[in-house]
């Protein structure tokens, strides 16, 4: 029946900024027709700290701590992107051992981030146990980080020209032990979810992104690959020691929430493969190159460096004016770009799907707002 005849009113509700399933301080203004979403408008900025401006006021090494706090779920990925950009700007190269260590840590961070994503995504859809199982394994990764650099979340372990220090004694064995238990753990989540009727019904066909749309919106990471676009920065523009690693890039076919879920599960397995390869071939030698105390990149230097973070393409754009602070510092946040897709995805879905959609694009508000 025509809605205008019945004089039904659309209900406008605020999902967030304080809401159990918006993963931080995202606010989504929803217009509802009954249970159906007419429009969804994300409101961001509650966590804005001016990281880019800070990046122009502090010297290059001082900015690393801010990159920790942008995507705090995958701090190492942020560190790595920024440091590699600075290295390129200054023409410094880290020794090979440090390059391999970066790969190991970045992939551990990817697994940790995906585990957190899986746990919270499942929790949003009501599967409580998966959340705690994921945290059990994530805890082991955080312990590995802690024994490496003392910090669990905000690592700040990368330095311009190498790493903070070498892996401590026994660390490599501990890391291998973790890699041994990981496949069984991932299998456990899959038994709980992949073949679970309710999970499949909640995720299949929800939030479909076509390949063309994904490219137009500038999506990256699992949301892009879920639509079948084969683009992974690690393969397309290898950095650190990724050129020597052998791994597969999982691709989706339908571009729905279920495909993106499968991709992230497979990425965890692939990350494990990369870690084991890197540990096997870990070269000897120094972990830190000789670097001047005060970094002064040549004036007029300009660099845009991208890496494949757990959430997608992380970029840093730096312009140097010859001093020890950047003249322009810009962070490309994958979460911010991916969040653009939410209003389009939510249209026509039910209110229960919005939590699945927020979960599937996997945003971290620190990363969105910067």
């Amino acid at each position: 029946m025509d809605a205008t005849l019945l004089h039904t009113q659309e209900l406008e509700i605020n999902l967030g900024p304080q809401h159990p399933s918006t993963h931080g301080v995202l606010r989504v203004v929803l217009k509802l027709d009954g249970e159906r979403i007419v429009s969804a408008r994300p409101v961001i900025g509650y966590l804005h700290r001016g990281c880019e401006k800070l990046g122009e006021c502090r010297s290059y090494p001082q900015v690393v701590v801010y990159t920790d706090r942008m995507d705090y779920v995958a701090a190492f990925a942020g560190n790595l992107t920024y440091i590699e950009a600075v290295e390129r700007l200054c023409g410094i190269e880290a020794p090979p051992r440090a390059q391999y260590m970066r790969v190991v840590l970045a992939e551990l961070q990817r697994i940790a981030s995906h585990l957190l994503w899986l746990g919270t995504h499942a929790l949003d859809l009501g599967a409580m146990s998966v959340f705690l199982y994921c945290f059990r394994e994530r805890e082991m990764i955080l312990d590995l980080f802690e024994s490496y650099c003392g910090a669990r979340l905000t690592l700040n372990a990368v330095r311009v020209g190498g790493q903070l220090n070498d892996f401590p004694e026994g660390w490599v064995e501990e890391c291998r032990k973790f890699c041994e238990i990981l496949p069984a753990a991932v299998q456990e989540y899959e038994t709980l979810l992949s073949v679970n009727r309710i999970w499949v019904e909640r995720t299949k066909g929800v939030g479909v992104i076509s390949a063309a749309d994904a490219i137009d919106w500038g999506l990256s990471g699992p949301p892009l690959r879920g639509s079948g676009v084969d683009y992974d920065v690690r393969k397309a523009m290898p950095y650190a020691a990724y050129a020597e690693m052998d791994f597969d890039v999982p691709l989706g076919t339908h571009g729905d929430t279920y495909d993106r879920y499968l991709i992230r599960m497979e990425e965890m397995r692939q990350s494990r493969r990369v870690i084991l390869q890197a540990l096997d071939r870990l070269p000897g030698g120094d972990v830190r190159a000789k670097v001047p105390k005060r970094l002064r990149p040549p004036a007029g230097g300009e660099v845009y460096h991208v890496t494949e973070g757990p959430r997608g393409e992380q970029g840093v754009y730096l312009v140097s004016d010859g001093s020890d602070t950047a003249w322009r510092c810009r962070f490309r946040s994958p979460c911010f770009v991916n969040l653009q897709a939410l209003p389009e995805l939510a249209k026509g879905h039910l209110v229960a799907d919005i939590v699945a959609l927020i979960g599937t694009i996997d945003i971290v508000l620190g990363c969105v707002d910067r």
Partner: protein
Amino acid sequence: MIQKVLVPLVQIGIVLNVMLLVVAYLTLLERKVIAFMQVRLGPRRVGPHGLLQPIADILKLMIKEDITPARADRLVFWLAPCIALAPAVVMFAVIPFSGTPLEFQVFGTTLRVTPWITDVNVGLLYLLAVSSLGVFGLVLGGWASNSKYPLLGGLRSAAQMVSYEVPLGLSLVGVLLFAGTASMVGIVHAQQNAPFWFFVPQILGLVIYFISAVAETNRAPFDLPEAETELVAGFHTEYSGMKFALFFLAEYMNMIVVSGIIATLFFGGWLPITFGLGYLSPRIPEVLANPAGELFGLAGPFWPFVTGLVWFAIKVFVVLFFYLWLRATFPRYRYDQLMRIGWKWLLPLSLANVMVTAVLIEMVR
């Protein structure tokens, strides 16, 4: 006079208080069982192994400030939790907890205390009728809060409970056909005389009833009216303190009633679990029904009364455990999927179940 008024009052008092205690410890059981399934420990701080946790929880809820939103409909806001709780409590009236009545000699008269508050001959219909009233509490609570999330929660519960009411009732018709009576005590007696408990021929009815009942009691994976990740807390978002406690109490009371109904209708109520050994020797069920009397020669109705109570409690516990197991395992259904299951699957299946059962019974006769 004493038999007609005082005895029922005492019975009601005992049942009510025991059930409150059971609810309190059901919450602890839930937390412990789910913690165990989720590689956690659960509450451990209050008392040994957290055994006093429910007491602490109740105290907290009682002394908590009871906030009524400024623009809420105060009367309805206050009434809604009571409306939700009352049917849950009233349903205990017809559930038989054990089989043997007790008899006391007081002032020269013999008082007969039955292990059920009353045994009306329309017991099952009474249960169905009363259980469908609980939804009003949720709907009114959601509406009276004058807030958006509770409103959505209330709407959901209205739609959900109305759709699941139909298969819920139909799934029990098969049992009625077998038992030939709607009295709860009569149904257990019918199972005692039948060669099997009714879950054997009515396994489909049992499954449908359990699924519908989980939906009816708003438990996972059908806990849409209070889906916390979507609707914050659903219909009770604005409730706090004792009013919230009443909703909470109603939910757990309903769980226990449903478990009691399943135990009574499908699993022989207070009858002992024999795993079919009764076919080998009729002595085995007799011993299991009254071990104290049969093995140790302790006479009197007290011992079979207690044994029946224990068997009933075991069955109720198993069903409750199932409830908790579901909650720890499954994601939540979506609103439209929930409706689809109710109308497209459960309703036709329960109708078919009634038809097939009726035809089979007629043919055997």
